[in-house]
C-alpha cells in the first residue's frame, strides 16, 4: 500500500518555497514572484530506492519570519519539515537556529531538512564563507531556477520518511 506523508515547507517569505515545489512537482519555474497566502497543497508520488512508492503531500505555507505565529492546525499530522532560506538575503537565515528551535518545539520528532535556495544568484564560495561566519549548516544548496539539487533535497526527505 502506498504511504502518504505530509511535508511542510517553512521559511521567510520570498525564499522560493513555492518555486521549489513547482520545480520538483512539474519541473517548471517562473521568475515572477507571487506571494503565497495561507497554504497551497500539492502532491507528488516518488519511487524510492527501497522499491516503495511514497505520496508526498507538500504543504506550502505562507512565508513568515514569525514562525511561532503559524497556526497549529497547519502543523497537525506533519511527518517532515523542509526549512528554506534565501542565500541572497541574510535576513532569512540570520536567526535560523531560533527558527529551527521553534519548529522542533511545534512539530516534535520529525525529520527537518535545511535548504539554502537561489544559488544561481551567488558565488558558491561567498555563500560558503557567509554561512560559516554565521555558523549555519545547510543540508542542501538549491536553485529552483536551474533545478540544481532540488530533486535530491525532496528525495532525501522522502527517504527519511520511508524509514
Amino acid at each position, binding site marked *: 500500500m502506498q504511504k*502518504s506523508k*505530509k511535508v511542510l515547507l517553512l521559511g521567510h*517569505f*520570498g525564499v522560493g518555497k513555492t518555486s521549489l515545489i513547482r520545480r520538483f512537482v512539474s519541473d517548471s519555474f517562473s521568475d515572477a*514572484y*507571487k*506571494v503565497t*497566502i*495561507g*497554504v*497551497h*497543497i*500539492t*502532491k507528488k508520488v516518488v519511487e524510492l530506492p527501497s522499491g516503495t512508492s511514497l*505520496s508526498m*503531500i*507538500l504543504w506550502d505555507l*505562507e*512565508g513568515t519570519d514569525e514562525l511561532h505565529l503559524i*497556526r497549529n*492546525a*497547519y502543523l*497537525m*499530522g506533519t511527518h517532515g519539515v523542509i526549512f528554506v532560506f534565501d542565500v*541572497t*538575503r*541574510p*535576513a532569512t537565515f540570520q536567526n535560523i537556529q531560533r527558527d529551527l528551535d521553534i519548529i522542533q518545539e511545534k512539530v516534535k520528532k520529525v525529520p527537518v531538512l535545511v535548504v539554502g535556495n537561489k544559488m544561481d544568484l551567488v558565488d558558491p564560495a561567498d555563500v560558503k564563507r557567509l554561512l560559516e561566519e554565521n555558523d549555519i549548516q545547510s543540508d542542501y544548496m538549491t536553485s529552483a531556477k536551474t533545478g540544481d539539487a532540488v530533486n535530491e533535497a525532496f528525495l532525501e526527505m522522502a527517504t527519511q520518511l520511508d524509514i
Partner: protein
Amino acid sequence: MLEKYKNQFIGNSIQFVVLDDNGLVRESDNTCIPFKTGDSLKDFHPFFESLEAIAPDSKNEVTFNCVHLATNGKELITDLVLRREDDALLLVIYDLSQHYNEYQSVAQARNESIIQEQLIALKNIELEERERFKNQFIRNFSHEIRNPLTSIMSITQVLDQTDLDAEQKQMVQYLTQSNSQLRLLLEDILSISIISSGKLQVVEKEFNLIKLLDLLIFTYTTKAKEAGLKFIARVDDKLPQIVESDRLRVYQVLTNILDNAIKYTKKGQIEFTVQLNQKRANKANVRFEISDTGRGIPAEKLERIFTSFTQIYESDKEIGSGLGLSIVKGLLTLMGSEIHVTSEVDRGSRFFFDLNLKYPLPSSIGAVVKDEALDAVLRKNLKKDKYKLLLVEDDLMIQTVLFKFLSGTDRFYIELVSDGAKVMEEVVNTNYDLIVMDVNIPNIRGDQITRLIRDFPFKGIKDIPIIGVTGTVYEEDIAAYKAAGMNAVLPKPFAQEELLKSVFKYLR
C-alpha cells in the same frame, strides 16, 4: 424576509459535507463544489489525504484558514472546518476567495516592499564596504608612495646644485615642477578619500579668526605678487576676534579657493572679502568671498566643478588634479555650509560661502584668558635670557613666517636649515635648546631625524625638545610623529600664539 436576505448574502459561499472516516462523501449540499455520494475527497484534493491525521477525534472543531482548493479549473480560497459528529465527520467549506484575493494583493505589495528594502540595505552595505576598501587602499598607496617621492625630490634638488648646462637646468626645473604637482595631487587624493570615508571629524575649538585671516592675507598677497596679480583683502572690522570652529578646515577651504583663483587668473586681481552677515546669541554668520578676474567658467560646466577629478579644460590637467573644489565642497558640507559660485567667461569667478562660527559672549572670559595666558607664557621665568633654536623648514615662505613668529619675542638665536641631511650635523656641532622642524623636508623626513636624535647616545642631544610642524590633516600621522619622539606636533596653519606656547612649554 430575513431568511431570504440571509440566503442571498451567504448564497453560494458555505457548503456542508458529511464524510465517513475514510473520507467518502455521505451527504453534500454542493453549494460550492459538486460532490456525489461515495466520492472520495482524497481523490479530489491532496489536503484530504491527511484527513486521518488532522481530523478531530472528539467533538472538537479544527479550522484550516486560507486553504487553496482547485475545482473544475477554478481556484477557491477557503476556510475549512472539520468537526466530529457521532460516527461521521462534518466538513464545512467557507468560500472566502474574494476576501483572500484582496488580502493577497496587500500581502504582495507588503512583501515586495520588504524584500526590496532588504536588498537595498544589502547593496548599501556592499557599496560601503567597497568605498571603505577603496579609501583604505588609497591611503595605504599614498603613504607608500610618499617615501620614493621624497627621494625623487631630494635627488632633484641635489642634481640642481651640480654643474648643469642651460638645457639640463631647464629639465631639472620641469622635474621639480612635476614633483611638486605629484606631491600636491597625493595630498588632495588623501584628503578626498578621508572626507568621503566619513572619517573626518570636525573639531571645533576656539581660535583667533583675525590672526588666521592675517596669515592668509600675508601668504596670498605674496603669492599674487609673484604671479603678477593684485591682491585686495577686505576684512569686516565687526568680525569677532575669537571664534569657535575647525580652524584647520576653514583654512583648507580658503586656501583651496584662493590657490585656484591665483592659478586661473592671468591678469588683474584677486579679491578676498570676509564680512559679518549676522550676529545672534553666540553665533556669528560670516560670509567668505573670493573673486577673481580670471577666465571664468562656462555656465554648462558650473555644476560639474565640484565633482572629483573634474577639469574645465583639457589643458588644466597640467596645473591641477581637479580635486580642490571637491575637497572644498566636502569640508563645507561637514561644517554645515555650502559653496556657491557665479562666473562669467573671460570676466572672472566669484566663490562664496556662509559659515556659522560660535564666539564667546561678551560675558565669557575665554578670549581674555587666552591673551593673558600667552603673556604669562612669554613672561615665564626661564633660566636663560636667550635660547639657541634650530628652525628646520624648506618652504621659504613658511620659513619666513616662522622666523617672524619666533624672533618677535627676542628670546632666541635662530639657525635656519632647509635640508634634512644637514640637521644631524647641526645638532651635533651646536648645543641647541630646542628644534622646530617641519616633518616633510628634503632628504630625511623630520620624524626620521627625530628618531635618530632620540637614539643618540649623548644626553644633551638625545633629549633636545623637538616641536614638529606638519601639513598633514590626519590624527594618526600626528600620533606617529609623536611616537617617533617629537614633544609636540602643530598642524599647519597655526597662530603665533600656539607656536610660542609649545616652544616655551619645552624650554628648560
